[in-house]
C-alpha cells in the first residue's frame, strides 16, 4: 500500500472497469438471486399462507396489550439488556428489569392485571397521560441483567430481537416493543411456511393439503397469542418446524452435503433459540443416523462426510456460545447459560427426585394413572385439563378462558376428528408406509419433548409448588398437528375430503376470531 491510496500505482495498467464492479457485486447479486430463486420455487399458495400468517399474527400483536403475553416482561428484559450492552444477562440477584421497563410496567398497572381477569390496564385518558408522563422522565433502558425465568436461555432469539430494538425510529419503549413483536409475527409466519413445505414433502400429490394444514396452524389462537409478543418460543417453534422439514426432505430426496448443512444449521438455531430444543435431539440424531445409513450404498466415506458436515455445522455455533458464556459474558462457566440447570436432576433446595418419581409424573402428565403408581400428581386429568383445554385456549398469563361449554363441545369435535384421522391414516397408508422409518424418528423427537416436559415439570412443581405445564410447550410439534388436520380431511373421500379440509380451516379461523373478541373483551371491555 502506498500511503493508503486506493488509486492504482502510476504506470500500471488500469483494471478493466467492468470486472471490478462485477466481482464486488457478484456475490451480493448471487445471494439476492438465490434468495429470489428460493422464494419463487415456493408455490404461490405457500407464499400466500406465509403472508396471511404474518398479517394475522401482527394483528394479534396489536390486540394483546404490551407485556401481556406469558413471560414477555422477562423476554423483553433479556433482549433489551443484550441490545443495550451487547452481552447476555449475567443473571444473579440483582434488578431483573431496566428502570425504563419497570417504570412502564407500573404505569401500565401491569402487576394488577396479570392473573386477575376482572382487572384492566389503562382504560382512561388520565391513566394514559400518567403513562406518558412516566415515560417522559426517560428512565434508563440499561438494566442490571438479574435472573428471570428466561435469563438462562441462549441468546439467539434475543440477538434477533435486538435488531428491531435498534432500528426503531423512536426510543419509546412501547414503540420498540411493537416493532419487536413484528419480528415474532415474522417468525410465526416462517413456522407456517415451514409446515406448508413439510406437508408438501409428506403429501406431494395433494397440493390442497399443504394449504389446509398450514392455515390450520396459522389461525391456532394460542400459537398466535405467543406470536403476538416478544417470546423466545417463537424461534423455537420455527426451528422445530424447520427440523421436521429438513429431515423429511433429506429422507425423501437423499442426504446431500447441502441438506446436511441445512440440518446442522437448523439444529444450531434450535439449540441456541431455547434449551427445550435439546429434547428433540435424540430423535434428530436417530434421523441423521438413518439418513447416513441409507447413503451407505453410495460409499461409506461419503456417508461419513455428510454426517460430519451436519454435526460440525450444528456443533460449531453451540461451541462458540459455550465459549462466550465462559469468557466474554462471564456467566460462571461454559454451561451456565441454562445447560447446567437443564441437566441438573436435583431440586434447588438440595433434595432429589428419583427416576421412578420422574417416570410416574411424566406418565400421569399424559395418560391415566396406573394401579402401581401410588402418588397422584394431578387433581384433574392433564390430557384434557392442560393439553387439550390449554390448546383450545388458556390465554394471557393463564388468566382467561372461553366459557366452559366451548371446551366440552371441543372435546366432542376432537373425538370426531380423531376418528376421521384414523380413517385418513388407513386411506393414506400407501404413502405413510414408505415414511415409517423417518416417522419413528419423529416419534422419538415427540417422546423426547414429552419426557423433557415431565422431567422439568416435576422438579418445578416440587420446588415451587406451582404447576409447570402449559399447552404451548407442545408447539414444537406443530408440524405433527398440521399432519393430523390433513389426515382428518383425508378421512373422507374425494370432494368430500376437500370440503372437510375447507371447513377445518374455517373452523380454525372462527376459533381464532372468537379468541380475538374474547381477548378484546378481557383487556378493553
Amino acid at each position, binding site marked *: 500500500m502506498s500511503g493508503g491510496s486506493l488509486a492504482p500505482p502510476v504506470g500500471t495498467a488500469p483494471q478493466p472497469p467492468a470486472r471490478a464492479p462485477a466481482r464486488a457485486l457478484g456475490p451480493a447479486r448471487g445471494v439476492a438471486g438465490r434468495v429470489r430463486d428460493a422464494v419463487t420455487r415456493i408455490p404461490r*399458495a405457500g407464499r*400466500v*399462507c406465509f*403472508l*396471511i400468517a404474518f*398479517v*394475522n399474527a401482527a*394483528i394479534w400483536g*396489536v*390486540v394483546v*396489550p*404490551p407485556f401481556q403475553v406469558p413471560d414477555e416482561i422477562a423476554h423483553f428484559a433479556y433482549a433489551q439488556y443484550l441490545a443495550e450492552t451487547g452481552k447476555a444477562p449475567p443473571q444473579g440477584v440483582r434488578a431483573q428489569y431496566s428502570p425504563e421497563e419497570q417504570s412502564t410496567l407500573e404505569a*401500565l*398497572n401491569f402487576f*394488577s392485571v396479570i392473573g*386477575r381477569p*376482572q*382487572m*384492566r*390496564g*389503562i*382504560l*382512561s*385518558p*388520565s*391513566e*394514559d397521560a400518567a*403513562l406518558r408522563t412516566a415515560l417522559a422522565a426517560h428512565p434508563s433502558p440499561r438494566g442490571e441483567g438479574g435472573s428471570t425465568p428466561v435469563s438462562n436461555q441462549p441468546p439467539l432469539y434475543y440477538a434477533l430481537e435486538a435488531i428491531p430494538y435498534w432500528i426503531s425510529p*423512536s426510543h*419509546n419503549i*412501547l*414503540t420498540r*416493543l*411493537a416493532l419487536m413483536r413484528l419480528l415474532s409475527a415474522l417468525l410465526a409466519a416462517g413456522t407456517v411456511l415451514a409446515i406448508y413445505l413439510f406437508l408438501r414433502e409428506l403429501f406431494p400429490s395433494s*397440493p*390442497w393439503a399443504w*394449504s*389446509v394444514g398450514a*392455515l390450520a396452524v396459522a389461525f391456532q389462537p394460542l400459537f398466535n397469542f405467543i406470536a403476538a409478543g416478544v417470546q423466545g418460543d417463537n424461534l423455537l417453534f420455527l426451528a422445530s418446524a424447520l427440523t421436521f422439514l429438513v429431515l423429511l426432505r433429506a429422507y425423501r430426496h437423499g442426504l446431500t452435503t447441502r441438506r446436511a448443512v441445512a440440518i446442522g444449521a437448523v439444529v444450531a438455531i434450535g439449540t441456541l433459540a431455547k434449551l427445550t430444543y435439546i429434547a428433540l435431539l435424540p430423535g434428530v440424531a436417530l434421523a441423521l443416523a438413518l439418513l447416513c445409513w441409507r447413503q451407505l450404498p453410495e460409499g461409506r466415506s461419503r456417508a461419513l462426510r455428510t454426517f460430519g458436515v451436519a454435526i460440525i455445522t450444528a456443533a460449531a455455533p453451540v461451541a462458540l456460545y459455550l465459549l462466550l458464556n465462559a469468557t466474554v459474558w462471564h456467566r460462571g462457566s461454559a454451561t451456565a447459560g441454562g445447560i447446567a440447570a437443564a441437566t441438573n436432576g436435583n431440586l434447588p433446595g438440595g433434595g432429589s427426585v428419583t427416576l421412578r418419581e420422574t417416570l410416574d409424573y411424566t406418565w400421569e402428565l399424559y395418560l391415566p394413572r396406573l394401579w402401581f403408581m401410588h402418588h397422584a400428581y394431578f387433581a384433574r386429568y392433564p390430557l384434557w385439563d392442560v393439553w387439550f383445554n390449554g390448546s383450545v385456549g388458556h390465554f394471557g398469563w393463564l388468566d382467561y378462558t372461553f366459557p366452559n361449554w366451548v371446551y366440552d363441545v371441543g372435546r366432542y369435535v376432537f373425538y370426531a376428528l380423531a376418528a376421521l384421522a384414523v380413517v385418513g391414516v388407513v386411506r393414506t397408508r400407501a404413502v405413510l408406509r414408505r415414511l415409517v422409518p423417518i416417522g419413528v424418528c419423529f416419534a422419538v423427537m415427540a417422546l423426547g419433548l414429552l419426557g423433557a416436559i415431565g422431567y422439568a415439570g416435576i422438579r418445578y412443581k416440587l420446588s415451587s409448588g406451582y404447576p409447570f405445564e402449559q399447552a404451548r410447550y407442545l408447539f414444537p410439534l406443530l408440524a405433527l398437528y398440521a399432519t393430523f388436520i390433513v389426515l382428518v380431511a383425508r378421512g373422507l373421500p374425494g*370432494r*368430500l375430503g*376437500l*370440503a*372437510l*379440509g*375447507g*371447513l377445518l*380451516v*374455517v*373452523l380454525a*379461523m*372462527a376459533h381464532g*376470531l*372468537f379468541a*380475538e*373478541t374474547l381477548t*378484546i*373483551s378481557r383487556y*378493553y*371491555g
Partner: protein
Amino acid sequence: MLPRVALGLATLAVLVGLVVDLSGSAPRTAGSDHVSPAVFAATVPGGGTLCEPISPLPGDAARAQLLIGTYGRPVPNLRLRFLDEAGRAVASGDLPAGAREGYVTVRLHRERRSPAATRACVAVGGSTSVVFGGEAGSVGAASELVNGKQQSGRISILYLRAGKESWWQLLPTLSRRFGLGKAPLYGTWTLAALAVLLLGVWIAVLRLLGRELR
C-alpha cells in the same frame, strides 16, 4: 363446487355467530382502582368509615362494585362517596340495608364533574362489622384508613358503566380504549384498521381455498 358451497355456508355461519356474540348485552366495566378482591383486606365496624386514595374516577363510571362479607348477616346500609382534594363529594351512592353478602353494586350519583376525585370513602351503617374484599399490603401512602387510622391493605372497587350494553354499543368506547397504553403510533383508528385487515385476511384465505380446493 361442493368445497366452495361448504366454505360459503361455514363462513356465513361464523358471521351469524359473530353478530349474535357481539349483540349480547351485559354490564360493562368502566375501570377499577386496580385492586383485586383477592382477600378480605379491611374490617370496618358498624358506624365506621373506611377511606383510601384512588386514581381519578373514570368519566363513564355509573356504578361501583364492592365485595362485602357480613358473616351471614344482611349487609347494613352503606354510603360510598368519592371526594376531591378539598373533601367535596364528586360522586356518591347509597346501598340500602338488607342486601346479601358477596358482590354488591352501588349506583353512583355524580355531584360535580371536576375536579377529579382523589379519595373513596365507605361509611358503614348499623352496628355490626363488615369486611371488604381487596389486597393485603404494607402500610403506606396508598393504604386504607379505617376511622382515620391507617391500616395495611386496600379495598377493591370495580366501576361499571350505566345499564347493559352490547359490544356494538360499546364499539366507540372500545376504539378509544384500544389506542391507550400502547405505542404512540396507535390511536382511536387502530381497532377499525385491524378489523379491516382481518377482513382482508379472511377474504385472502377464502380466495386461496377456493382455488386450492377445486
